[in-house]
Each structure stands twice: as structure tokens, then as C-alpha cells.
């Protein structure tokens, strides 16, 4: 079977320079496609229409770098490490066109997109101010309708098929069969896209895929490109491969409270590095990365005393 393996820079070059609709797969501090996002910033894509169910540093980096025009999401944080203060600040200052959903409603928009159906009905969002604001903003993603079956009120959620979805996963073979270990919150989102880019920790053999078929979360016919980027989610966690970097996140959660510091961070660590390897060297290289390797049974870094 044909190889779908691409280089990171080459993959990001395929994204239009302006106005792409982009869905990201991270969830707070885990499996965020950081390497991919860094490269988007280096290539200075603009006016992105970004979708992410529970945002993390991936979306925040794009917002902080001025790449995002519109953000569709449900919440975001660095878990206990802190808030996405850089995103919050832009929202507070009215600099970001923001569309807020509940987790269920946004993930169901992806489901409808993945199924090729025009919409899907739900009771979620009824009575909330997210719904009120979406309607006020004339967002075309929601309509309040009456079900012809039970005569009750529902929100009809419009299918979303983003131009591009990017997820970070543990493994894939070169043909594009993707293994996700652990929770798979992002599968419907990945399947909804017109083009799916998957960065992985390691490209494995087709034989490995067949031996572990029950772990394959996305079959190759969905995949547009496979990009091997070890530590591609750093400093976020990748279950069974490496843990989040606690110290890095603590520092980051200070940086994102200050716009000047944040701009300097972007200049130095993202724009100032030519690729992900250079970024990894800059943040401490092998020594730092070895320190967060996951225990293969527990899936995270176990302190061995």
C-alpha cells in the first residue's frame, strides 16, 4: 500500500495561508499536536477558524501567535497548572470571534460531519447562554426546532467537516492506520475532516497494526498524511509514551499571564527554532525528555524510589 508519510514542514505547507478551517485534537494537557501547531506558526498561517472540544496549549499557541480569527470550543485549561490566560485575555478584549458550545454539542457536530448527515438533534444547550449567544451571533451551527416525532424542542446541530483535522497519536503505519492508546475523545473529530493529518510518536510496521488491530482507532482510508514527530506533544502527555513535563507547564502557566512574556516565548521557542528537533534541543534535549518517559504498564512516569 502507498505510503502517506510526509515531513512536517511539507504537510503544513499544504494548508492555505489564510482562512482554513482547522480542528485540533488535544484535550487540556494530553495528546496536543504541539509540533504541528509550532510549524503552523512558523509558516504564519492566518485567519484560522479553529475547532477544539477541550482546548489546551495547542490552540492557545495559535491564538497567541495571531493565527486565529474564530475559535469554536467548549472550554480549555492546562488542568490544575492553570488557565489558558492568553486565550481568555483575547476574549476579554474582544479580539477573538468566539463560539462556545457544550462538550456534547460540539462533539456531536463532528459526529454528524463524520457521518455525512446534515445535522443531529439534541437537548443539550437548551436553556444555556451558549445557545443564546450562538443565536445572537447568527452562528449557523445551531437551530432550535421541534422534532416531528415527539413534538418536543431540540437543538439541531449542524454537521461540521473541517478542512483539516490534526491529531497526535502514539502510532501509525505508513499507510495511515492509526493506533490510539487510552481515551479516544478525538476520533469523531478526526473522522469528520476533509483532510486528516496525524502526527505520531512512531511509525510502526503494517504487521504491528494487524497484530494490534483492536487498538486501531482510525483506519487508513481516513488519513491524508502521517507525520512522524517523536515528542510531538511535548510538554503535554502521550499515554504510555511520555508524561507531561510538570516544570515546563508550571513555567508556561506563568508565561501565558503576560502578553510580552508570551510574545518573547513564541519568538524564542517557536519562531526561533527551525523545526521540532531544534525546539526539543532548546528545551533541554535528551536529558529532559528521558526524565518524562512513561512506564509502559502505568502509562505515565512512575517515581521509582
Amino acid at each position, binding site marked *: 500500500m502507498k505510503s502517506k508519510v510526509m515531513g512536517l514542514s511539507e504537510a503544513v505547507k499544504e494548508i492555505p495561508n489564510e482562512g482554513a478551517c482547522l480542528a485540533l485534537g488535544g484535550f487540556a494537557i494530553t495528546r496536543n499536536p504541539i509540533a504541528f501547531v509550532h510549524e503552523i506558526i512558523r509558516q504564519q498561517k492566518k485567519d484560522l477558524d479553529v475547532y477544539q472540544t477541550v482546548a489546551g496549549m495547542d490552540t492557545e499557541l495559535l491564538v497567541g501567535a495571531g493565527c486565529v480569527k474564530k475559535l469554536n470550543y467548549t472550554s480549555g485549561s492546562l488542568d490544575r497548572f492553570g*488557565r489558558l490566560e492568553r486565550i481568555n485575555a483575547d476574549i476579554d478584549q474582544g479580539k477573538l470571534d468566539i463560539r462556545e458550545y457544550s462538550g*456534547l454539542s460540539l462533539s456531536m457536530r463532528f459526529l454528524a460531519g463524520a457521518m455525512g448527515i446534515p445535522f443531529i438533534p439534541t437537548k443539550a444547550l437548551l436553556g444555556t447562554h451558549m445557545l443564546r449567544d450562538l443565536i445572537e451571533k447568527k452562528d449557523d451551527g445551531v437551530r432550535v426546532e421541534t422534532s416531528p416525532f415527539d413534538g418536543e424542542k431540540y437543538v439541531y446541530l449542524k454537521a461540521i467537516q473541517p478542512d483539516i483535522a490534526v491529531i497526535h497519536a502514539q502510532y501509525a503505519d505508513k499507510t495511515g492506520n492509526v493506533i490510539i492508546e487510552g*481515551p*479516544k475523545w478525538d476520533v469523531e473529530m478526526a473522522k469528520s475532516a476533509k483532510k486528516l493529518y496525524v502526527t505520531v510518536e512512531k511509525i510502526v510496521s503494517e504487521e504491528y497494526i494487524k497484530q494490534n488491530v483492536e487498538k486501531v482507532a482510525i483506519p487508513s482510508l481516513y488519513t491524508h498524511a502521517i507525520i512522524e514527530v517523536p515528542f510531538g506533544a511535548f510538554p503535554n502527555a502521550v499515554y504510555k509514551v511520555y508524561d507531561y513535563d510538570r516544570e515546563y507547564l508550571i513555567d508556561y502557566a506563568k508565561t501565558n499571564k503576560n502578553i510580552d512574556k508570551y510574545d518573547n516565548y513564541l519568538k524564542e521557542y517557536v519562531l526561533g527554532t527551525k523545526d521540532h528537533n531544534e525546539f526539543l534541543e532548546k528545551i533541554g534535549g535528551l536529558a529532559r525528555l528521558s526524565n518524562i518517559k512513561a512506564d509502559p504498564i502505568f502509562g505515565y512516569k512512575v517515581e521509582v524510589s
Partner: protein
Amino acid sequence: MAEKYTTNELMAVTASRLLRDSDNIVVGLGLPQIAAQLAKTTHAPNLNIVYEIGSINPDAIEMGVGIADPRLWYQSQYFTSFVGTMGHVLQKGMIDVGFLGALQVDKHGNLNSTHLKTSKTSTGIRHFNGSGGAADMACFSKRIMAVMKHDKRKFVDKVDFLTSVGYLDGSDSRSREGLPMCEYIKIITNLCVFGFDNEERVLAVETLHPGISVQEVIDNTGIELSIPEAVKRTDEPTEEEISLLRNQIDPLKMFI
């Protein structure tokens, strides 16, 4: 009855006792998870715990920093997607208890976990985390519990932004809006337990925590309250519960 316990311990025990055996619950990190663990260890061994990120019934041995922390997924019995947990399990009405937190709650039990109004920004708001799956839990869970710090600015007449539905404008307005009806909403604070089990669906003290005065609650609540002097007291934790919390469930005192 335990001799000495902290307020956090009391809150965890109170929440824990509201859980019934064989309940399916959705929890986030912190006190709710502690409460769930305690219930599972004591009277509710058949609790099923669902994490919206896509993990069911893990048997974690380390506390994490959030539901996206792999520590919370150890020994899971099932991995799925957001659609699998929230779109299927929750939306089908299979969740008995949804545990929430919030920035604000109003007199009809509506929650705000997104933003507060302020005069300090050009838009007039200060954005925090957003609602994520909490909005959906409030919509579809049979019983809704929130754990909150008692504070005048957090208990308000109208929430600045309504993310998680309670009883909306009170009385039958929740069902008139087309929302599934819940069995109850309870707010567990450091001073008392609030419920809404009256016709108008208005915030009312169900039990006062031991040692807390009626006046203390009134002073710290930004919603008008009428509290009968004879209001019940929250049951105190047992020695066993406190010992489990301290020695087994949260020995590092991360949340207790």
C-alpha cells in the same frame, strides 16, 4: 462520629453519602472524585465512574492534575470517545449523578463556569475556563451535585452567564424549556447543603454544617434566604470515613 475533621473532609463525606450503590456517575478531579472514591470504598462498591474524556471505571493509584492526566486512566475497563461518554452514556439518560463545580450559582440552581462580568475589560467580561461537559451533565444527569466555596459573590440572584442549567427561572420552567427533568440539585458548600425541593425551585438550606450559624450562611450568600431556626444539621463524618480519607484515599492531602 469523628472527633476532629476539616471542612473539606465534611464536604467530601456529605457528597459521598449522597451517592447510592450502583449509581453511574460523572466526576471531575478534586473533592467530587474523593467523594466518589470514599463511597466506592464504603457503601457504594458498585459505583460506575465515567470520565468525559473517554475512560470508564479506572482504578487509579495516583492523583492526577485533571481528567486529561494519564494517572486517572490506570486500570480502566473501557476507553471511548467524547461521543461515547457524553453522546451515548450521558445523553441516553444513564448517568445518575453529575458532579459539578462553578464560578457562580443562582437562586434557581443554574451554574456559571465560563465568565464573570467586570468593569475592567472592554467587553465587560472576564473569561475563565468554559463549561466543557459540565453543561451537558446538568442537562442529562438524574441528580446534580455541585461542590462550591461559600461566598457572597458566588451565590447570586442571576448568574452572569448560564452554562449549566438548573431550574432556569424556577417552578416548571426547566421542563417548559424542553429539558429533561432531574430528581434534584444539591449544592454542597463549606457552610451548608442547599437544595431546591420546593415548588418555586428556589435555593433553600437543607442542612447546616455542624457549628455553622444561620446568620453565617445568610451573610455569605448573595441570594435572599429564609432559614428556619430548626433547620437540620449535616451529619458528621464517622471515624472510619475520616480514616479512609486520610490514610487511603488522599494520603498526600492534595484535595482534603
